[in-house]
């Protein structure tokens, strides 16, 4: 939970979505898969939850940026999918500000869902596993350097 800084609710201009969706989509997928693998490697993601993701396909769609990340989890690694599956097992779609608020633990996914700022389509239980897995991650504390002290 950020104390001093908070991410406002915003929407990127429609032009950007039109532009963004014409760009290649694999960099998003690769970046996301790399980040998730780093979290798994540091033991932040529990094994019993990861096991439930095996072989399933995911789509994270940033609506106002026009970006899509397709990936899967196979043999212990998150992997980008070069070819988008027709119907992923689970899709999350939201605007960039909602995803940033989720990542910063500033908003609760249920809140965004009730307010129709986040949509979840596909295997609902799989979505719940992922949500609860990410909620249980203990975020590293800021280093206690003099510069960070109030």
């Amino acid at each position: 939970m950020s104390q001093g800084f908070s991410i406002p609710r915003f929407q990127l201009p429609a032009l950007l979505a039109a532009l963004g969706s014409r760009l290649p989509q694999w960099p998003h997928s690769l970046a996301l898969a790399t980040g998730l693998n780093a979290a798994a490697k540091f033991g932040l993601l529990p094994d019993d939850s990861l096991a439930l993701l095996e072989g399933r396909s995911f789509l994270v769609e940033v609506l106002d940026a026009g970006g899509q990340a397709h990936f899967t989890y196979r043999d212990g690694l998150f992997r980008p999918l070069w070819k988008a599956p027709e119907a992923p097992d689970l899709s999350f779609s939201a605007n960039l500000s909602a995803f940033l608020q989720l990542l910063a633990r500033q908003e609760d996914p249920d809140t965004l869902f009730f307010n129709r700022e986040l949509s979840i389509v596909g295997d609902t239980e799989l979505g719940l596993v992922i949500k609860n897995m990410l909620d249980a991650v203990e975020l590293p504390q800021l280093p206690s350097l003099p510069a960070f002290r109030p």
Partner: protein
Amino acid sequence: MSRLHVPELICPAGSLPALKAAVDHGADAVYLGYRDDTNARNFAGLNFDRKAMLDGIAYAQSRQRKVLMAINTFAQPGRVADWQRAVDGAADLGVDAVILADVGLLDYASRRHPELRLHLSVQGSATSYEAVNFAHREFAVRRAVLPRVLTLAQVETVIRNTPVEIEVFGFGSLCVMNEGRCWLSSYATGESPNTVGACSPAKYVKWEKSPGEMSTRLNGILIDRFGDAEPAGYPTLCKGRFEVNGDTYYALEEPTSLNVLEVLPEIAAIGVAAIKVEGRQRSPAYVAQVTRTLRAALDELARNPDRFHVKPAWQSELARVSEGSQVTLGAYNRPWR
């Protein structure tokens, strides 16, 4: 006005970060459960394994906050020992109290662990002082959580006629509130909070998007359809819109959240021992937002009991996280008896 007793603030923890958020933002106690069907929030990936449980209890108790363990489902045929082991485990872990609903389990806990503090869960469905006093006489229950169906006057009647501490809900999603006796989820899916520890389990839920609308289905049953700008609720039968005699509407209950800020002075004045926040299924962000807001309100009440007023900022923070974005006083101020 004599010195007001401000109720304790009891906050939900579905994960270790949520527990820390509750403690850091001013909860007097947190409640949590095991990762199995002994608790009524048995959702995939939620709750505490043994290590997280140990860490969480140490985190809270080292800061002089209490940990209450919810073992609030009903022991299933042939598996009574699983629920008894859960109680034994809670006693070993040194939690400050266990929250139980099952009469058989209350009996076991009171005999096997006479030193363990027992709370009667809302799932125990005790709505009268006779029921609360029965639990006190038979099992030495020290606190009872009242179902969300009573008016404030009825809560006061219970408090005046029992030595048991009374806890009421202060904030969170509402359902039909037939706690411990609701079979709507079982009707649709064959599974319910009482049996598997989850209402409308996620594996039965489907959100279907089509242009301009979203449909919710629970085990194939159409629960509701939302326009793109319409707020959504949890996918339970009690919150669905159904066609009844030619009209389509929320036939049982609208998606809505309870919020007692406006009646906080009355709740304190009648002697409520604690108020509870619903939502172990919610994220650490929600726990932090709600705990912080209710802590501020309770502190303001302690400072200024005669001139307490609800700040708009509290209401807007709570409205933001509410299911259906509605806040009501629930049954507390309803005229019916």
